């Protein structure tokens, strides 16, 4: 979706405010929210792309103004609502008025010691042949859709060079709709001046990890 979350290249957000050192969580509730997200017994059909797509649909004013972990809260609340696991009234009161069945019991404190080592991987076996190879010139597609995608607006229509191939990874556009489909994933380098012509081209490059469906071949000139 073309939404407020797609911030690359946008103007008007002012200077970056570096911080030398800051606590991992500014407020206790932020750490609790992180803990809830890591510890919750989740339906099998939730995944990271559904989470991201849910967050992207926060009203733009809220996306830009709410604290980061409050956006996590809003997204998980929306997912609980959408899965029929909680009602808005329950979320408001903190009291359960209907019980949930069909989900595994949640992890215990003791189990966290093992589960912290779990690593999610997104590469999958792929029977087909990759369409592109390292050093190929490609163009990022202009095609957009209203669902979740990881092709940022600022790259669309621009040409770059494939610099790495990573095998097939689960496609976010599909995964966010509950379809676990893998496709070749490439790292593509774009000259900064190709993406943003006002920038003097002195060799700086922006690299994006892009799925095959986001790319079109460019005939050698």
């Amino acid at each position, binding site marked *: 979706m073309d939404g407020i979350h797609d911030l690359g290249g946008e103007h008007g957000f002012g200077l970056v405010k570096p911080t030398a050192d800051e606590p991992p969580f500014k407020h206790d509730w932020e750490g609790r929210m992180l803990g809830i997200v890591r510890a919750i017994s989740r339906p099998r059909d939730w995944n990271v792309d559904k989470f991201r797509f849910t967050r992207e649909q926060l009203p733009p004013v809220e996306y830009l103004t709410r604290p980061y972990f409050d956006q996590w809260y809003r997204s998980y609340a929306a997912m609980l609502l959408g899965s029929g696991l909680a009602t808005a009234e329950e979320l408001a009161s903190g009291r359960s008025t209907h019980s949930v069945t069909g989900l595994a019991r949640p992890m215990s404190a003791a189990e*966290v010691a093992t589960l912290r080592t779990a690593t999610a991987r997104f590469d999958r076996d792929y029977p087909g042949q990759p369409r592109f190879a390292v050093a190929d010139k490609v163009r990022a597609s202009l095609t957009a859709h209203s669902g979740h995608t990881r092709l940022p607006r600022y790259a669309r229509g621009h040409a770059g060079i494939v610099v790495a191939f990573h095998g097939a*990874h689960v496609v976010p556009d599909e995964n966010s709709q509950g379809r676990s489909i893998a496709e070749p994933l490439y790292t593509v380098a774009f000259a900064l001046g190709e993406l*943003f012509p006002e920038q003097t081209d002195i060799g700086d490059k922006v690299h994006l990890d892009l799925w095959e469906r986001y790319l079109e071949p460019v005939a050698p000139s």
Partner: protein
Amino acid sequence: MTAYDPKHAAEHHDEIHSHVPSDPALRVKALESLLVEKGLVDSGAIDAWLEIYRDQVGPKVGARVVARAWNDVAYKARLLADGTTAIKELGIQDGWAVGHLKVVENTDQVHNLVVCTLCSCYPHGVLGMSPSWYKKEAYRSRAVREPRAVLAEFGVKLPTHVTVNIWDSTAELRYLVLPQRPSGTEGWTENQLAAIVTRDSMIGTERELPTTSTGG
């Protein structure tokens, strides 16, 4: 329980907004109580995760990786080839967002800068929680458009003969910058080296590390 279709998330957001308390601390407290009552979460497990990412996992983990790579060229080669496997050699166990870890090396000619323009992807297992500016609009919008101006705001002034490689984390690969080893650190132990490696140098918003060792 019904299948979750995020196409309707905007409506869910509206419904939640009109119901829940306005104070985020109260909202999260109500959420935890509700989930405990429904048997979907164990408060002890929340405590355990919070403790891990507040007290145990942070930039010090990534600093150990950098220090080893500086002191061991064979390790550095393995790290650059496959970050996910190489960090396990050091006994680094935390797996959050390091399943496809790509380490990119700074040199005299190249400076690397990591961003996530679409959300705030970050290699949590080696760097812990991300700094606030990394998640804010100014950094996410500008790092890919005017990287040298952004770097200057961090005090990094790059000469034009140094190329900037920006890495926008659009897939599940996560990027960690291997900063350059400062001169004057020959013969230092790994602990001494790790003590000078900063969070920002592994994101790429710092380039020249000071050689005032605090480790031992």
